């Protein structure tokens, strides 16, 4: 029983990272139907920016987190402007290939700049372990940070999308970009804004992972990026609450698979879920079936 609860805590911690990355995937897909494979690498860049802030500029954790989010928001906008915007009217496949190209570019650029070896993320926050229920459950302060920061960011995102003018524009563009343009919405700005928010969230995920696992490397974004994609599809790609649901469920499923089965199967299970979802309910858990308009 206690072991199960402990595994649940582990799973939620892991899931919050997937959820943060999945949000960016889902928003970008929702708005321009692009699976942005460079998203996992933005997450990696986020971790490195925070690393540089802390190690070379001697900043605290929160300023490093904010700077990293701002930097990655800019990076997201630049990537969109340089790599995806010129291809706005090309076929879906050329944009997808470009996304993979951007991903490789970021990975290799970081290897040149920061070295290929893994780096140790400094201890910006003291280690504290809380023991609950007579030592049966252990939770570290970093796990608490991770979960709380994730929830705060999600509430903020929800507010932005539901209650601001920009959020309204995002929803409008997602529904029909041509009609939105006719209504006087600046579609390009809206798309850039979506990339900015998504990348900032991914950066936050990267910083939290750096803080929690202490180890960062230029290829750290590859697998979480793919997993977040699975999470996004699982919850229903293009749907924001779906990404959160998908992220947390995937984290918990993975942890339980390695906790009660074998750690070797957890990636297999993650991708099996993807295949299963695509077979049974291609729109994801929260997705609605919309008939193609003729």
């Amino acid at each position: 029983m206690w072991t199960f609860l402990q595994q649940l805590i582990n799973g939620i911690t892991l899931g919050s990272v997937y959820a943060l990355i999945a949000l960016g995937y889902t928003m970008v897909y929702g708005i321009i139907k692009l699976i942005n494979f460079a998203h996992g690498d933005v997450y990696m860049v986020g971790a490195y920016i925070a690393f540089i802030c802390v190690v070379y500029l001697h900043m605290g954790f929160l300023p490093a987190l904010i700077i990293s989010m701002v930097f990655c928001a800019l990076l997201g906008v630049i990537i969109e402007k340089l790599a995806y915007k010129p291809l706005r009217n090309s076929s879906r496949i050329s944009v997808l290939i470009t996304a993979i190209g951007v991903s490789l570019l970021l990975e290799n650029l970081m290897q040149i700049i920061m070295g290929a070896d893994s780096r140790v993320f400094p201890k910006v926050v003291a280690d504290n372990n809380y023991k609950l229920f007579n030592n049966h459950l252990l939770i570290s302060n970093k796990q608490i940070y991770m979960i709380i920061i994730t929830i705060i960011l999600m509430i903020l995102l929800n507010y932005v999308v539901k209650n601001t003018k920009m959020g309204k524009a995002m929803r409008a563009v997602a529904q029909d970009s041509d009609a939105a343009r006719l209504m006087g919405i600046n579609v390009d700005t809206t798309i850039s804004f979506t990339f900015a928010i998504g990348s900032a969230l991914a950066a936050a995920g990267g910083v939290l992972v750096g803080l929690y696992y202490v180890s960062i490397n230029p290829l750290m974004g590859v697998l979480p990026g793919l997993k977040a994609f699975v999470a996004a599809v699982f919850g229903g790609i293009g749907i924001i609450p779906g990404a959160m649901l998908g992220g947390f469920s995937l984290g918990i499923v993975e942890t339980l698979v390695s906790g009660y089965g074998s750690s070797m199967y957890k990636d297999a299970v993650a991708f099996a879920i993807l295949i299963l979802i695509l077979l049974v309910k291609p729109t994801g858990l929260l997705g609605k079936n919309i008939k193609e308009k003729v």
Partner: protein
Amino acid sequence: MKKFLSVLVLVLFLCLIILPTLAASNNTIKIGVDLELSQAVAQYGQRELDGIKLAVDEINKKGGILGKKIELVIIDNKSDKTEAMNVATKLAVKEKVLAILGPATSGATKSASQAAMQYKVPIISPSATDDTVTINERTGKVKTYVFRTCFNDSFQGNVMANFAAKTLKLKNAAIITDASSDYSKGLAKNFKTTFTKAGGKIVAEESFGKGEQDFNSILTKIRDKKPEVIFAPVYYDEAGLIIKQARELGLNVPILGADGFDDPKVVEKAGKTYSNNVFFSAHYSSQDTDKKVKDFITNYKKKYNAEPNAFAALGYDLGYFVADAIKRANTTTDREKLRKALETTKNFVGVTGVINVDKNHNAEKSAVIIELKDGVQTFKQKLNP
């Protein structure tokens, strides 16, 4: 006439093949280096290269071997098995090197040794400890052109199993292995055999895939089985994380590892307070008081302004090891003669101990056990083969 022409063409053709080989044998001895200089285990390759370069510089300063200087042809194998073979092929065929030094890890060396066998070029790994590196798994025969200057995993696994069972007197062990590494799987197997033979019991066996960072779920599972000791034969990147996450989950039992733990990154990742009660087998200890070791440390510090670790020492020894064999073989081009000289190496005195090459092309030499005390490596004991 026709016959004469065809013979002429044949002779010309042969000249074309032979000439470049002759041209290559000028004033230097070309030695290839096939090491992990980037990606996953770059730290090993980088440090070994530092060691090799230091040794070669020293040898060249003293006038080289047989009147010729050593020229290193260095290619990065990107910590990738397939790439390691490509690099070895390139070194053997295109660069026409006399011998190849490296790769650092077992998987990469096994893969590169296929190229070594095919092109008949001696390949010597400074740190590939898996048993099957020098032995063909299918036929059980020794791979003629593959050598190593380190001990193998049956020795290392035995050392750690005996240490757990006899020195620490512990009965129940859990094992964590990296399923993507031949090194890790081999060590776990040897540990298991020896530990069970010594009366111990394996209560949990867990493995993880390449590049894993989250060990919480398997450690939580292991904690449930109440082991008295954990054996984790993994590389430095994972080692630090496993120690840290185990301690955070309240698993305070001794954690044992092998030479993969021998890197400052382990302590950096685990944190000083958690780096206690950790033991691992290693090739050498910088606290050794031997003059050769002390000289090596001084020279290394002078050149690189950093403390050498065991991999730097292994690389350094490898440089002298191959130079010694070339001198005894008395040739700078004949790979076959060099191979025979390597096979008959006896009592080669290096920084990491006295090396005798056995019939399976392994180096027979001693191992040391190092303990981490608040993150500081302390020499615990020395074990002979």
